């Protein structure tokens, strides 16, 4: 199906988040807008130049942007939880169904909090 190919090109639907230990998470752009930080980065008129060292831009023309975000401080077991949170947010916002508990084990909670603070979500 063609949606899976929308990884490059004008109708960019996905972006990649890379963890500090090399794992990569492909995630829909809409889901990722939960994060205030990423939303700023995806802004078509980026004014925030200081964040550029987290972003790898490939291609020179605007139509061929592929966006990867390198989260150098966030390990993969935390980043996967963050991605799961994005999905949960998109699913249950403005929905009448019961919002289920989002389980967080106390052991990962401090690191997850730092990641959430960085990503503003």
């Amino acid at each position, binding site marked *: 199906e063609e949606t899976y190919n929308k990884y490059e090109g004008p109708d960019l639907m996905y972006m990649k988040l890379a963890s500090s230990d090399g794992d990569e998470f492909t995630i829909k752009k809409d889901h990722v807008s939960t994060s205030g930080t990423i939303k700023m980065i995806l802004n078509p008129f980026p004014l925030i130049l200081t964040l550029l060292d987290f972003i790898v831009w490939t291609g020179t023309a605007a139509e061929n942007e592929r966006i990867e975000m390198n989260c150098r401080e966030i390990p993969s077991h935390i980043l996967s939880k*963050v991605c799961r*949170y994005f999905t*949960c*947010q998109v699913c*249950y*916002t403005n929905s009448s169904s*019961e*919002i289920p508990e*989002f389980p*967080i*084990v*106390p052991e990962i*909670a*401090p690191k*997850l*909090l*730092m990641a*959430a*603070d960085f*990503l503003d*979500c």
Partner: protein
Amino acid sequence: MASFPLSVNEKLIARSRTIGELLAPTSPFDKKCGRENWTVAFAPDGSYFAWSQGHRIVKLVPWAQCLNNFLLHGTKNVANSLSTRLPRQNSDSGQKNKPCEHIIDCGDIVWSLAFGSSVPEKQSRCVNIEWHRFKFGQDQLLLATGLNNGRIKIWDVYTGKLLLNLMDHTEVVRDLTFAPDGSLILVSASRDKTLRVWDLKDDGNMMKVLRGHQNWVYACAFSPDSSILCSVGASKAVFLWDMDKYSMIRKLEGHHNDVVACEFSPDGALLATASYDTRVYVWDPHIGVMLMEFGHLFPPPTPIFAGGANDRWVRSVSFSHDGLHIASLADDKMVRFWRIDEEYPVQVAPLNNGLCCTFSTDGSVLAAGQDGSVYFWATPRQVSSLQHLCRMAIRRVMPTGQVKNLPIPSKVVEFLCYQI
């Protein structure tokens, strides 16, 4: 005297959506007592809802069926017709899988209600659980009713039968609360200026009397880990008790009038108290500091006015399951829903003569009692921020003192201590 500050346009505040009502049956000839409704309560697992209808009657309904009825039959639902749709109690079958409605005549004016479950909401703190004469089964669900003459009657929720009669208070039992760890420890707060601790697994043996209040005790609440008890009362009293040693930890000072309601946040990091001084205060119970203030009268009253009859007494406060929302009930005929990080209510709902309110176990509904009837509203809910979810996960296991020692930036420490 305004209910909201000048900067807030009252008409812009959203109105809450009504879910349903449970109306008391009208009985003009039966005037055993007034139609006051001093208390409403949900079972810890959300299976039942109980309220005092006045006239010494307590009504117990299975909550899921009740909610279903509201959705199927519209919001108006007279209590009498409700009973014909639900199975009546059967004295032979106390089966748990067929929840029944019960009408309990307590024999005296009911002032307080509390559900107690032998299934812990969190990991139990008591290692040694002894079984005595009352062979409480795997998941016992009890309802305690506090009466005008100081007696406490304990009922089995599944069968509606009276199990125990606790007699020691000499005055009205104004509030009751069970420890959330499933130990079936009950604490009662009374106008006789004491609180008493009862062990219901030990035949209702009274373990301890907590003395210290100089005047009526209005309400009590356990922290979610069952280690701290808060009791509030007349003469501005807010006390915190250590429930391992049964000693007083500290007094929280700040209210200007009688304090009538209290509740901990679900992570135990915050304590909300409601007072006749027109305010709800939110404290950090671990260090005894006041963090937030929610006003119901503007401009804010002077201490003298707040300390007297000011027509704006706050009667009840409840914390939502998401740890972000609080509901308060005041004498200006309004229920207010607050977010703890915002100064002004996010939603309001009208209610005359409301005296008590409580969130349902999953936080989706607020129930408020008035004149023997109960009204239900949908609560403002959204997916909490990941930062807040992490904060609750951490605070459930860590008191404020330990948080300050974590190797994290001070801005994050402040966030974790709800100081932002």
